[in-house]
């Protein structure tokens, strides 16, 4: 047996533990790392799809609209995408921890509501920010309690919180009336978060970039991130290794909610208002962005850079469609199609370029079960 077969053993193929050799004929090797890896089309190509789609969108709209590829417009797009980016990064953390958070929109809404109400009540900006984050964190705390203490599956728990949070919103706003802030009465310190700029860069964008950098490093370079990932993928194995799996999960839901809450405060600041249920619009986009981003990883693992690619795809698509004069009616269609195309291509490329050990028809059969294991 050659060492080549060891390299070509596809790590994703969980069904064939035995095909990978513990070959006894290989001489004891002194090199432990740094052996060259061969280019593997089935591993590399699927991971390129999302970036290629992103580039394609850039090119297409640049050709269709003269305004699109201007620095002003692109900066505007990034600024627009900042809130979605914050929410989606929060979702990334939760998905990395093996869950999903449908209530992230509620966290955003309640934070925006609290911040707007605080400003309307004449409180200072930092108080508004604190109250906003506190409301958001409350949502995260409820999620964490339901999922960790009661062991309810995250999808169902956060779905319930979505229900309840929506009602709470309506109750707090007297049946869902928006709160509009008088621009003149909003302190600059608050308005700045959504509308200010540092060195020409919009502050929401600064927030998003900082948060992205910190969360990226946290997930990929620290003990917490490593343990969170392990817990998300194999909870029992992590627990056996002495990890505090419950606390790790709690930290993920809290961080997810906190980031959404930050997004909510920025949204309230940007719009000088709280409009009920505006957070819900972000939930599905955030999930879509996270999973588009997950195609960038060979394990289908959610990551911050991947998520940002997903966010950009959605943001550029929306902006470009606006510029070429398509009504917002079409946006859901475009987003849905983009999501389907990226994810399906990723799967198909993984398949078709693979060394045909397994016939295609059978691989199709194998796919759902391997995806679940």
């Amino acid at each position, binding site marked *: 047996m050659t060492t080549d077969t060891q390299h070509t053993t596809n790590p994703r193929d969980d069904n064939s533990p035995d095909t990978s050799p513990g070959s006894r004929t290989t001489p004891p090797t002194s090199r432990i790392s740094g052996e060259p890896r061969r280019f593997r089309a089935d591993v590399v190509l699927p991971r390129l799809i999302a970036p290629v789609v992103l580039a394609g969108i850039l090119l297409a709209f640049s050709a269709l609209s003269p305004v699109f590829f201007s620095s002003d417009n692109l900066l505007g797009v990034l600024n627009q995408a900042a809130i979605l980016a914050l929410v989606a990064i929060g979702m990334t953390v939760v998905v990395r921890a093996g869950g999903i958070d449908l209530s992230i929109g509620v966290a955003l809404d309640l934070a925006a509501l609290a911040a707007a109400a605080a400003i309307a009540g004449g409180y200072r900006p930092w108080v508004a920010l604190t109250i906003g984050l506190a409301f958001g964190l409350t949502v995260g705390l409820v999620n964490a309690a339901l999922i960790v203490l009661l062991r309810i599956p995250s999808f169902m728990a956060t779905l319930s919180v979505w229900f309840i949070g929506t009602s709470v919103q309506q109750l707090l706003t007297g049946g869902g009336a928006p709160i509009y802030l008088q621009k003149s009465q909003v302190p600059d310190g608050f308005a700045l978060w959504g509308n200010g700029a540092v060195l020409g860069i919009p502050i929401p964008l600064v927030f998003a970039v900082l948060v992205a950098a910190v969360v990226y490093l946290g997930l990929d370079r620290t003990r917490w991130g490593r343990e969170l990932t392990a817990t998300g993928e194999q909870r029992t194995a992590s627990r056996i290794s002495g990890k505090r799996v419950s606390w790790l999960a709690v930290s993920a839901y809290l961080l997810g909610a906190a980031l959404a809450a930050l997004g909510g405060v920025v949204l309230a600041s940007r719009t000088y208002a709280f409009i009920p249920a505006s957070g819900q619009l972000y939930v599905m986009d955030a999930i879509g962005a996270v999973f588009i981003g997950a195609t960038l990883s060979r394990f289908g693992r959610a990551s911050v850079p991947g998520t940002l690619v997903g966010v950009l795809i959605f943001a550029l698509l929306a902006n470009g469609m606006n510029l070429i004069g398509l009504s917002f009616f079409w946006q859901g*269609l475009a987003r*849905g199609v983009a999501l389907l195309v990226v994810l399906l291509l990723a799967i198909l490329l993984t398949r078709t370029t693979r060394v045909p050990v397994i016939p295609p028809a059978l691989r*199709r059969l194998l796919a759902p079960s391997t995806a679940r294991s």
Partner: protein
Amino acid sequence: MSTTTAVPEARILKPLRRGAPRWLAWAGYGAVVLVVLIFAVSSSAFLTPGNISATLNQAAVFAVAGFGLAVVIITGGDDVVNGGIDLSVGAVAGLAGTVAAVAAGTGMQPPSAIALALLMSVAAGIINGSAVAIGLRPLLATLAMMGIAGSLNLVISGNVKVPLTGTTFEWLRDGRVAGLPVAVAVMLLAFAVVGLAMTRTTWGIRSYAVGQNPTAARVAGLNPVRYVFVSYIISAALAGVAGILLASRLSSAVPGLGDQILLDIVLVAFMSVVFSRRLVVSLGGTLVAALFVAALTNGFTLLGVASQWVGAAKGVLILVVLAVVAVRGRGTAR
């Protein structure tokens, strides 16, 4: 003989391990009866024939769509992130209503309009099913379809309410079959057909097997993809039926309604677990859950509780259900 003695002895330990606390199996039904009793006592209008009929009518939409979602969950497995889920049911139902209304509005015969709407739904189901068959996670495939169907709904309706007129639709709203409102009759028919198919036919049992353990099904010589694919078509078709029932009841197709009913449909399908011995999603459980949720909504309205509390109540309800399931699961799982 050693073996003859050893085997029965090993069995003595079993009863301790097997089964959940028995009272829990009935807790779900108990809660239903309790809530109905409370409403019956607090509001004299609750148990009147007219109100019961209205409640059943309300339940019909969620139940019919819920049956479809239940089939998807049964066949795809109930792990939500990777298992079977159809998030597009609400949007597809909304789209079906709009297509029927717009088609009827252009002068198409109501039956043809309905056929067109159902065709549209099935097409959505085929896309969902194909994407999942290729290997996409159901959550994501149907999330995309939810966006697409919702968007199409806006495009077709122009984001305005489309009135639904025509004798067929009026019959769907007001007519009766064997003394039952048409919507209720449709619900019972759908329940009978899909319910029997899932529990009494090989196709149904195999669907359960596929959902439980696709590898086991494959090893047993089944083709899991076929069952999964079909489940999404069934789901979309039933969502279409539900959408037409809903539009008929409201005499118009209301854009954006799809997103609202999605949560109720998901609630109803997952709640069915509480009414099942095997702790799995079931058709019968879905029916009971739909009736329960409708009764709850209706009862709250009769008691004059503000509508925003209904959402909160549903949220709490689903949590109670899930907590019960979690406790019960701890009893059986080892």
